[in-house]
């Protein structure tokens, strides 16, 4: 097994671990924002690591995989941002222990 292969295994393994942690977080976290934190931030990192590891296995796939990585990095945070704002607009989704709420203050406290 060459050095590249070992590196590829490390990257894909790390990616799988992060994706697993993300799934576990969605399952275990108490409220919508915490779940979203686990389900979106961690999937971005997990998919990036995993795709990069795949690219190390097959160097000829690397350009396409890097394009996919770029697309995920551009879209995943934006969609989670939009989802989080939508959830914030829904009063029933507000967790009880939400004390500091900068978005609410910037909107002028109208609800």
């Amino acid at each position, binding site marked *: 097994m060459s050095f590249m292969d070992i590196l590829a295994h490390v990257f894909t393994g790390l990616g799988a671990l992060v994706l697993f942690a993300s799934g576990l977080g969605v399952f275990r976290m108490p409220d919508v924002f915490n779940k979203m934190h686990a389900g979106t931030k961690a999937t971005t990192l997990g998919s990036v690591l995993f795709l990069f590891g795949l690219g190390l296995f097959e160097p000829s796939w690397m350009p396409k995989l890097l394009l996919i990585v770029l*697309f995920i990095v*551009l*879209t995943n945070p*934006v969609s989670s*941002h*939009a989802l989080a*704002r939508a959830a914030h*607009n829904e009063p029933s989704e507000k967790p009880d222990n939400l004390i500091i709420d900068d978005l609410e203050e910037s909107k002028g406290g109208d609800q």
Partner: protein
Amino acid sequence: MIRTIIGLVIVLALSAIVVSSVSDYSMPSELIGVGRGYTEQGVNDTGSVNLVTAVVVAYRGLDTLGEVVVLFSASTAVVLILTLIPIGANPTPPSSIVAFTAGILPGAIVLFGIYIITHGHLSPGGGFPGGAVVASAFLLVMLGSNTIPGKSKFLTSIESIAGLTFGLLGFWGMLTLGQFLNNLVLPAGSPGRIISAGIIPLISLAIGAKVASELSGVFASYRKAGGEK
């Protein structure tokens, strides 16, 4: 308790039926029947390297025409129902992050959609998925803007022209070769090139344009009906 037992009995009986019906089934070691015919003659018959497209557009082209009609009637119904809902006030404005992303991504997405549509006979894809990708770019543009989309004659005419093209291509085969949607009214060319496989690329284009414009129309009517009342 009794319900649980009855349920368990039913599940066990159904599993027994399933197991008994598949237990003596063995996978054939080679392709048989229609599948064999498609894989052996598909490239020669249609010139399409992608056999799925060969089946969907050439062998079963009439079914695809039916699917397009189904999509057309479904989207027409959605738009009809949504126009009954009064137009909302301005939709919730997008945050600056969403607006910025909606400004830079759609071009790349449309390009990718066109790639999928035009390579339908060479690689997985074709008119339906490619059209959906293009429509998603329109959706992104709509989400990133603060206005309600107006009535678009452009979309409707694209939709009509695309549907008409599909039908006319079919009749072309009927007039020249005696078969509706016969693929080889144009030469098959050399398989694997982008201009090859008879009228498959043209039909992919027509389906792609139709799906893209129809789905964009549906998105636009949702946008109009949504927003704060």
